[in-house]
């Protein structure tokens, strides 16, 4: 790694670290504000979460309010949370009383497992279809991938998930329909997400590979006498990566943020699942920590994408140098 390269990496890390701090502050305050705006008395909701809906009365709600200091002013509560955040103390869940770190860590693991497997599957299915379609633009496989994109994009994930359950669990009995923990229970939710995503990836891969194989430098590589395989490995893949990596980054972020429906459908315990329940039970510490982790994950993905593109493509991104 050359000196300038190291400087560029440092610049990326510094910028993204700054962003992470800013995002953490904004998300925390926003979460807090949103929870205060929710209708209903938070003390009653928390009490219902702890003792069950039937056992809640004014006394238990008052006990919760006094215990958690919910009658303090909003500024005081926000200030306490931010100070705790600085000390990396996320507190305990208002409902389960377990440490928030353990709680959120458990859900984070679920989300990461699901995202990684879904993204991996989508890249394999979509990337393969895209590369094959690009070998013969306008051919039957190309038309098939176009139809595939339209089909899977038109299917909402819950419907796709139900169809997969029907086929793979109910009829063929290959996989468990719902659950969390075993590796086989991961397959269905991951497959649901991956199928929906694979169409888009196939399309973008196909367009990118077609464009690159028609580019001047790939043609020149061929007339230099390189075999097709060398042309693909040395020139096409790397240049395709420059386009595809940022796109996959965006898709990874969407996967992490937007899997609530699929997690609920398959009872998979991830961050989306945790977020919904925390909102429902007014479990503010869990809610804030979950939102914070989601926001930081996006920053982390962007950092990885930045570094990957920096490694793939040496061209400067500032206009100044090109003029």
């Amino acid at each position: 790694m050359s000196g300038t390269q190291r400087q560029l990496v440092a610049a990326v890390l510094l910028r993204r670290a700054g962003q992470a701090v800013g995002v953490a502050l904004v998300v925390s305050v926003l979460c807090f504000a949103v929870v205060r705006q929710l209708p209903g008395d938070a003390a009653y909701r928390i009490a219902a979460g702890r003792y069950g809906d039937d056992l809640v009365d004014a006394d238990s709600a008052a006990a919760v309010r006094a215990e958690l200091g919910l009658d303090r002013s909003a500024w005081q509560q926000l200030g306490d949370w931010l100070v705790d955040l600085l000390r990396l103390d996320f507190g305990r869940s208002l409902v389960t009383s377990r440490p928030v770190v353990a709680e959120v860590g458990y859900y984070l693991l679920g989300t990461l497992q699901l995202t990684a497997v879904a993204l991996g599957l989508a890249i394999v299915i979509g990337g393969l279809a895209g590369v094959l379609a690009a070998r013969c633009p306008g051919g039957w496989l190309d038309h098939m991938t176009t139809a595939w994109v339209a089909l899977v994009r038109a299917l909402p994930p819950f419907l796709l998930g139900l169809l997969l359950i029907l086929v793979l669990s109910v009829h063929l009995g290959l996989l468990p329909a719902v659950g969390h923990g075993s590796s086989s229970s991961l397959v269905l939710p991951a497959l649901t997400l991956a199928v929906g995503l694979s169409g888009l990836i196939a399309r973008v891969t196909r367009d990118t590979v077609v464009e690159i194989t028609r580019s001047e430098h790939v043609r020149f590589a061929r007339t230099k006498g390189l075999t097709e395989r060398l042309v693909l490995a040395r020139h096409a893949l790397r240049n395709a990566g420059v386009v595809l990596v940022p796109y996959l980054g965006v898709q990874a972020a969407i996967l992490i943020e937007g899997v609530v429906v699929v997690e609920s459908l398959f009872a998979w315990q991830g961050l989306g699942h945790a977020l919904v329940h925390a909102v429902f039970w007014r479990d503010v510490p869990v809610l804030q920590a979950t939102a914070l982790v989601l926001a930081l994950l996006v920053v982390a993905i962007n950092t990885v994408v930045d570094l990957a593109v920096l490694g793939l493509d040496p061209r400067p991104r500032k206009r100044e140098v090109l003029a």
Partner: protein
Amino acid sequence: MSLLELRDLAVRHGDTALVDVADISVKSGQALTIVGESGSGKSLLAHAVMGTITTGLAVEGTMSLDGVHYDLADRANRKHHWGRELALLPQEPALALDPTMRVRDQVAEGAPGFRSRRKAALRRAEDTLGRLNLGHAARAWPHTLSGGMAQRVAYAAATIGGARVLIVDEPTKGLDRDSLDQLADLLTEHVATGGLLITITHDLHLARKLGGELLVMRDAIIVERGPADRVLTTPEHDYTRRLVAAEPSRWQYEWLASPLADATADPAAEPLVAAEKLAKSYGDTELFRDISLEIRPGERWALAGPSGVGKTTLGNLLLRLGAPDEGTVRHHNAVAGGRLQKLYQDPALSFPARVRLTDAMRDIVRRHGVPPGRVESLMATLGLPESLLHRLPGQVSGGELQRLAIVRAMLLEPALVFADEATSRLDLLTQERTMDCLMSELTRTGCALLLVTHDRELATAVADHHLRLDQAVHPVAVP
């Protein structure tokens, strides 16, 4: 002695013949150069020989190399010769290099035995680059190279496989004279060491330097052939005569710069653009400093110099399209409101690619309240049929599109036009036509010109005021 022969070579699109050539032979030790304007079919001929021609075109004919015959209709039968026997130096070397790979690796991958002995190939690439005075650039990325350097890197990459037959396709686009001479030396050396060379170009200077046999192509056929020095000094065919006369040093027009003081400019007039002590650097590289100049109404200025010295940057500063590091640029009221126009090097990039030309023009007419009928009358003056307007920019030839850009600029009755290498990508005849259109319009309207070019002859022919930027930071002002 090697010999390459082409017989009954034809390229067709439907019923139209794009190339129709009875026989061409290339001997080792003698360069073969094909000249002609864009669209004459000369590039198609090169790609038909190589086997890289687009699949939509039908090819006929045979090629024989040292007695072995190849059917040109079969694109694939020469593929195993690529890089070993047959090499192609592509147009636009800057685009032919992979932007994500270091120069040395791109050169090395063409070396024989690259797959099994990578170290040896890399060493050989470094040797080759060293011989081309590019040893320092071995680990550079392509975007850091100048046009001339990129051309020599591409040459190294194309020839490292040891191919005897080298086909060079329009190598001069956008190259300045010094880089061109260096390339000519490399090609001459290839011929001198027994190689076979076919050069496709519209640059007569290069054709003259290469010598050997010259073919003049027009509308798919060869109209004249013979030794280069004979054809270029005493052309026989009408078309060749016009081609030779199209070099800027031989132009004959009323608007040419005269050695006498120019009549249009009034030294007492207030300057349209006044620049004082301009300086600009990019990173650690200082382009220029202490440049002061004043452009008065009707004056014609040329900024000349090799590529990469900051000519375009200086022009943009004068138009206030960029900010100088030091110094000031003042504009007179006469150039306010779009009366200061720029013509770009690549007209295809200066028109929106997916908008019909008629819509692109109509937007300008509406925005600036141009009187109706002005587009049509200007197009008629510049010899452009109105039907062109119904096409997309990509469906119009480069020369026509640049003339449309002139129409677009002149719509606003500018007081100053900045022509940034506006004709350097066009062939000689098209360049002559385009410059004639531009200069006639400028003369008619008394508009001033700021011309950026690396072509000294063009600058001399057109401008009364010259500013040369050289590698040295300090400019040389020539009155």
